[in-house]
């Protein structure tokens, strides 16, 4: 928790220094939201009956997905675990991380988490407010949905963190992971519901997506926010998310312990 607060302060300071960054970031969130809004409006103009969901709900889903995406790929890209690890491994500074008394996984979670929270407060809130005021972003239907969305969002972050952390572990095998990261984000885009919600896919793809953890990252919280999920659905989704978060975190931990052991024997 202490590291978390310290990281948060650091994050705040750096935004002060890179002031141009800040304005540009708010701008790009708005462009991206505007983009998906136009896309769905154009698609719906085609034949609204295909989709079975009102345009306003779809737009809310898509714009909020963009907002979540900004939190999940927070301001300082270097705080994302896979980027940080690859940077440290390549420069040979990973040793210094091993020397710190705090476990690497927790260290990174604190850092990445603070950046995400900061992104949520400083970048996404303004974008979200503008969306509500100007672009027809809807509010969640009930207070319950709103609260559940926040909880679900935190769980999403945890799941994504663990996935990214495991990707970071790949660095110890190959030095360069930028390309793999690109492919990974491509796959994530398809399977997480970030751009296209699950129910638009063909049946067989839906079945595959259902059993993978990726859809918990975007689709679950978004379905809750837009009210597509009933009370029972909410309870079930949150439990499922929590289970995935725990399993993936543990899996990451096991991988890290393996790598750590290997490092101690091989000497980096």
């Amino acid at each position: 928790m202490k590291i978390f607060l310290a990281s948060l302060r650091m994050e705040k300071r750096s935004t002060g220094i890179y002031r141009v960054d800040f304005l540009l970031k708010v701008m790009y969130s708005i462009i991206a939201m505007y983009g998906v809004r136009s896309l769905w409006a154009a698609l719906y103009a085609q034949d609204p009956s295909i989709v079975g969901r009102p345009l306003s709900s779809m737009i809310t889903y898509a714009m909020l997905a963009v907002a979540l995406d900004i939190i999940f790929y927070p301001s300082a890209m270097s705080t994302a675990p896979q980027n940080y690890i690859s940077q440290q491994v390549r420069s040979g500074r990973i040793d210094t991380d091993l020397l710190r008394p705090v476990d690497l996984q927790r260290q990174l979670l604190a850092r990445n988490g603070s950046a995400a929270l900061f992104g949520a407060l400083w970048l996404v809130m303004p974008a979200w407010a503008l969306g509500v005021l100007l672009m027809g972003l809807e509010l969640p239907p009930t207070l319950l949905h709103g609260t559940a969305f926040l909880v679900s969002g935190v769980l999403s972050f945890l799941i994504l963190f663990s996935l990214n952390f495991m990707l970071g572990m790949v660095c110890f095998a190959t030095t360069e992971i930028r390309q793999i990261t690109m492919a990974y984000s491509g796959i994530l885009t398809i399977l997480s519901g970030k751009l296209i919600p699950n129910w638009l896919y063909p049946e067989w793809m839906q079945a595959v997506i259902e059993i993978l953890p990726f859809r918990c990252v975007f689709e679950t919280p978004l379905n809750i926010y837009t009210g597509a999920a009933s009370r029972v659905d909410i309870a079930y989704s949150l439990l499922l998310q929590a289970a995935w978060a725990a399993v993936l975190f543990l899996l990451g931990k096991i991988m890290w312990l393996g790598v750590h052991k290997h490092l101690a024997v091989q000497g980096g």
Partner: protein
Amino acid sequence: MITVKNLQKMYKIAKPGEGRFATLKALVRPQYEERRAVDGIDFTISDGEIVGYIGQNGAGKSTTIKMLSGILVPTAGDIKVNGLIPHKDRKEHLRNIGVVFGQKTSLWWDVPVIDSLNILKEMYQVEDSRFKKNLEMFTDLLDLSPFLNQPVRQLSLGQRVRADLAAALMHDPKTLFLDEPTIGVDVVAKERLREFITEINRERGVTVLLTTHDVVDMEKLVSRVIVIHAGKIIFDGSMQGLRERYGGEDADIEAIVRDIYQEGGRTV
């Protein structure tokens, strides 16, 4: 021949604001402060000298070296190196000088040392016979052969600096600028570097200006020292003169240097 007259360099630095709304204030009106890195210095270095340029970190050493090599343009004052103005007659000037920054390599990271030397040959248009002769000589003097075919990223620091020195001298420059060439290098390797620099100076008449914090460098290598403190030159003369002025006949050089770094020196 290097002449420097009333040389000045000023930097403008963005100031992170303080107080509650610092971030917002910085967004609206960024604050700058000016810093004088080099504050009106004069000196002349004749051909064939080895001059030590010493001073605390941040005293203005590297800034001076960068201006002398043409990377930085002075705010005011004149520089002439071998009759050329560094930042105006760039190409011509660069052919006449060699530069080594001990802290970072100018070689290509991923390819064997010999490949770097070969591409530099192309860049400086060094004749084949000349290149061959130099390569033989430097390989011999700097003992390059064990790692000539290894990529730079695999070299130890001492090896890397040796490779960098060879690279800086391949085109037979008249003047050599060395920014902390011995930093972080072990005692034996340091000794070898010193021998090499002396040799190059004696055999080829190369003028050398080097910055260093190493007392042994000052005593064994240089014939003259220029001391810079807070952007101003406070001493220019022989090591003997430095001793007489700041410490007395048998004073410890280390103590003198420490005094200068801390408070600009105590004259006796």
